[in-house]
């Protein structure tokens, strides 16, 4: 019996903490899509965001440039979440885009701002707290021209509810383009799709 206890203890010790954590959050794994189409982002109270500048009029995705975050979620196409021990990946059908979210590390230097920014995160119980900065100012936040500057800072709280839906509470801070920070929430449902079809905008436009 004593040996059995020792064996169990040894087995428990042999499981890396990260592995155990990744398994705990395995419910995030899979293919997801927006629960209901939402071309425009609204605040939690349903109001229009506190814009300090005019909406964008030139949509660079028409030229196959990336959609950015959170607009990628609003395109109505599915995305895959894969939860690893040291990072989490969001892999989108649209634009064959991917977002790597590094766990338990601070932001690192980059030589240029990015369409999808740079994301790091940590688990707070069953909620994934994502912090994203270092955006460029090219993308829109939604499909209606909601702009942002390169001062954009996104924080997200990603959590599963008991019904199996995935909620992304997004806080948007951009002192250049908005009068104060504001929040919005996106809800995703699990997709029956196991595979995401390929999407290459350039080919779709007949350029390849």
């Amino acid at each position, binding site marked *: 019996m004593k040996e059995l206890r020792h064996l169990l203890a040894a087995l428990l010790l042999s499981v890396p903490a990260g592995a155990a954590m990744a398994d705990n959050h395995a419910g995030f794994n899979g293919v997801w899509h927006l629960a209901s189409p939402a071309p425009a982002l609204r605040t939690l109270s349903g109001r229009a965001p506190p814009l300090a500048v005019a909406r964008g009029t030139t949509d660079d995705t028409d030229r196959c440039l990336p959609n950015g975050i959170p607009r990628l979620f609003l395109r109505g196409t599915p995305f*895959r979440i894969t939860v*690893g*021990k040291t990072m989490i990946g969001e892999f989108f059908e649209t634009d064959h885009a991917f977002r*790597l979210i*590094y766990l338990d590390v601070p932001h*690192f230097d980059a030589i240029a701002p990015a369409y999808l920014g740079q994301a790091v995160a940590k688990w707070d119980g069953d909620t994934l707290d994502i912090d994203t900065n270092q955006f460029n100012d090219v993308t829109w936040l939604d499909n209606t021209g909601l702009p942002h500057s390169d001062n954009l800072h996104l924080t997200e709280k990603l959590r599963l509810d008991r019904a199996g839906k995935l909620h992304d509470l997004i806080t948007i801070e951009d002192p250049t383009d908005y009068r104060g920070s504001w929040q919005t929430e996106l809800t995703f449902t699990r997709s029956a799709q196991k595979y995401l079809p390929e999407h290459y905008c*350039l080919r779709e436009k007949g350029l390849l």
Partner: protein
Amino acid sequence: MRKILAVALCAAGCGLITPIGLAASAQTAPGNATPLAANDEDATSAGIAPKGLPPPPADPRDFEGDWYPFTAPGSGPKGPPPGNAGGSNLPGVKPAASIFDNDENSPYSVELCNTPPLFLGTMGVAIVQSKDTVVVANEEAGDYRVILIGARHPPHFVPDRKGNSVAHWDGNTLVVDATGFTLQSGAPSDAHITERLYKAQNNTELVDAVDVYYPSTGRHEHRISTYRWRPDLKVSEEVCEEGYSAFEIKNGKLVIKADE
């Protein structure tokens, strides 16, 4: 014509896209301002990764992390050893160029803005791994590939550029079976790829041994690519499509933008 245009586009855009991870991490390590040992003579002369990196996961089945070709900064001036990510030839088999070329009839060739079906990148990859999924995020062209462990190929998979990849474990080797490819033209390819992914050198290297079989001709091709554990480098956002920003569509044709 299309190929020439593609080259022109890439020259206009792809070359201008600096891999952020490479350049940035050559200056500072993630999370601190300490210069990396990219210029460390000991490290470079030995042809190894910079010193002081966090160790790779000890689990030989854990591929997660950032992996880079031997030619990445800090890897040394002696050049890549046999089996570099740029491709090496096994004795008696076809040159690597035959499977990583711009032959539009090859299922491996790099079409602009999507990666070839295998790793085969000359830039880095980040691997995110869960119990039943391995996703390879490829810096080159900003594309990714999903490998489902323990799954079967779907019976009605619509062939595409990256094909369909399923895998199983053989000891500590992940055996990947990939099929369902198309050529650049969109026509289906009969290429059937078997890859054996495993870690080597105390888990600091990731080896991708590839066997390609064409049932219609009975031809086999082989290739080995090796990546090095490089947690100091982060796969950056490579937007191949930016190369097209110098162009516009007029009358259904892609033309160089007129000077403004």
